[in-house]
């Protein structure tokens, strides 16, 4: 397989996953902004910060409100991570590797793009926003289903999946980090209803609020929720799950190609840290610091994969 094709598959999946997670992130910000009157801009700002998009947003908009933020994160082609930019990039990458993906995958992605590019932003604002965000998640689910159900388990599959999990790990870390940026009015409010409610939204954004009960048999607690999204391997959006999955895909490549790669070693190391890590260490060093360090090493892993397999 061409190194370029491997890169196209890797990034195709990353962008599909990114589109989905932008919708998830926006969902969190939107819901938080609904729960507390007067704090709307605060919550939205925290979400923009987590997406590392506050500066780009500020350059285009003076007012932080749902309409502006939603437009920026969904439809703005100047925002390289907006849903529209992500879907456009996913489709462009897919188009470059039409021969390596299945018709089902192409139809799903192309159909999503055709529909999305015809949406009038003003038609999906206000009350319609939650269901529109839901439809973005569903498109991503459909693409994933097409991929899992039709793509040959060859090197191309491994590259696509590795990209998917690298991106998801990054996004889960960002969704968790939103909470860091949300400032509670008073320190004494840690553990309060407002605090817990915000943590709950984080869980919802990861489609994990019900699964949580089955694992923890407990009320929503910050400690557990962070544990759930960082360390629990049963949780398909957790950092541990994502890194283990990337590692498994790199193992698959080692097997297909009959030789070990440097990037696989890095993935194994990262996975080990997540296996032995504890919430004590996370909270004593600071959740935000932990997440930033994770995103850094996740990024390094992505670069190592590019290097090992001649992406260009």
């Amino acid at each position, binding site marked *: *397989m*061409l*190194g*370029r*094709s*491997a890169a196209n598959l890797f990034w195709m999946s990353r962008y599909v996953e990114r589109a989905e997670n932008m919708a998830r992130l926006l969902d969190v910000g939107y819901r938080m902004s609904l729960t507390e009157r007067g704090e709307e801009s605060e919550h939205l700002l925290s979400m923009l910060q987590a997406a590392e998009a506050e500066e780009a947003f500020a350059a285009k908009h003076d007012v932080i409100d749902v309409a502006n933020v939603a437009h920026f994160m969904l439809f703005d082609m100047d925002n390289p991570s907006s849903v529209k930019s992500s879907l456009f990039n996913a489709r*462009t990458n897919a*188009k*470059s590797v*039409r*021969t390596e993906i299945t*018709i089902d995958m*192409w*139809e799903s992605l*192309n*159909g999503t793009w*055709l529909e999305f590019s015809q949406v009038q932003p003003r038609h999906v604002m206000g009350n319609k926003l939650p269901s529109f965000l839901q439809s973005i998640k569903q498109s991503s689910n459909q693409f994933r289903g097409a991929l899992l159900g039709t793509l040959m388990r060859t*090197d191309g599959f491994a590259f696509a999946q590795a990209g998917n999990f690298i991106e998801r790990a990054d996004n889960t870390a960002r969704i968790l980090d939103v909470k860091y940026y949300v400032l509670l009015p008073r320190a004494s409010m840690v553990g309060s209803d407002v605090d817990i409610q915000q943590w709950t939204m984080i869980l919802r954004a990861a489609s994990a609020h019900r699964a949580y009960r089955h694992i923890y048999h407990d009320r929503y607690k910050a400690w557990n929720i962070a544990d759930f999204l960082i360390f629990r391997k049963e949780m398909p959006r957790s950092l541990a799950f994502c890194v283990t999955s990337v590692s498994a895909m790199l193992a698959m490549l080692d097997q297909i*190609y009959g030789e070990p790669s440097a990037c696989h070693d890095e993935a194994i190391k990262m996975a080990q840290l997540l296996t032995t890590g504890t919430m004590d260490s996370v909270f004593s060093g600071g959740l935000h610091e932990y997440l930033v360090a994770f995103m850094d090493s996740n990024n390094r892993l992505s670069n190592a994969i590019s290097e090992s*397999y*001649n992406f*260009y």
Partner: protein
Amino acid sequence: MSEKKYFDEMLNADGSIREPYRILADWVQAQPKSALKQLAADAETIFRRLGITFAVYGDDASTERLIPFDVIPRVISAAEWRRLEKGIEQRVKALNMFLHDLYHNQDIIRAGRIPEKLIIQNEAFCPQMMGFTPPRGIYSHIIGVDLVRTGPDDFYVLEDNLRTPSGVSYMLEDREAMMHLVPDLFHKLKVAPVENYPENLRRTLESVSPDTCDGAPNIVVLTPGIYNSAYFEHSFLADQMGATLCEGHDLFVENGKVYMRTTLGPERVHVIYRRIDDDYLDPLTFKPDSMLGVPGLFDAYRAGNVTLVNAPGTGIADDKAVYTYVPQIIEFYLGEKPILKNVPTYNCSNDDERAYVLDNLADLVVKEVHGSGGYGMLVGPASTKKMRAEFTDKIKARPDNYIVQPTLALSTCPTFTDKGISPRHVDLRPFVLVGDKVRITPGGLTRVALKPGSLVVNSSQGGGTKDTWVLED
């Protein structure tokens, strides 16, 4: 204008149904307009979802359009097809021999059968090819011959398209769509299959791999990239053949050999089906500023380490000025009479012929010698006074830049339009493969001019396509 002076593919002069169309005509008759409308809508959905689009030059790079598809097929009888097939095979054999001769001894020039000036001073002549013989001596492997019909037995070759003809993916997808839309018709009629084309293409490419290649050759399709108007076709063919789809920067040349950059490092390439024009193939040999090609590719080719399909320099044999000599070319190399007709062509450099042309522009078709895609041409009967005045000036200024032909009475074929079924003009592009043998896919791409009365079938000018059914005995 549109009185009954055109031959209709479905009707005899007396209005009765022609034999090959008997079953189809019954079927069409039985369809209410709403059913045909539904079929047309279904077809559009199929094509759009598959992403069968083309980019129109000059439009924004992100615009992709569908080529309109007509659900009423064009039918050709087995006997008609046999004759066409013979004529096409004769033509492509002679033209390949002509190319070999031009790039070696030039016997045909020595024999005075074609003017030396026409060849040597022609932009399409590629001096870098002199003295080199590609595998099996074949230059043009993949050909799309443009034919038009003016009567029951009158087929004319309009263009030979020996460089990088496109459209074969539409032929294949049109069939795919029709089998999906009207399976019942395929039960009633025995239609020759076209699905073998990708397999035959692969066999053709394998058969011309370099002599130095032992074992299975590594075949790639070289595309200018996703913004090219025919990108869909490039990826489609690569996919159907199981070949790697490459862009120029995916390949490199080292020690006279071509490699592609894979996830595991360099991998040798033996045959390149290139969909990039000659000029852009290799910046070291041709256009130095080409970003699409592969530096050193031409030297690797001349060293016999890689086969380029089609060979560089085939354009000289489908040059519009050389076209007029094809009947002589066939006689010279094969000693046979041409089976298919050439359209009579006026030479504007000749004073008498030019005078005739300028007096009769309203009845003639003027084409630029190096134009294509229906651009830069004048269709006399559909032209305005102003357009004719423009072309009069152009021809006077550069007489040898234009060829002029009578307006052919292109046959019509029943076509589904907004106002129901009505005749529209069509042409036919059969696809030919030349390798260890000549393989011609039955039928080809029927292009249809959708504007009432229009004779221009190019997709860039509002043309559509139809599936083409060659009946089996």
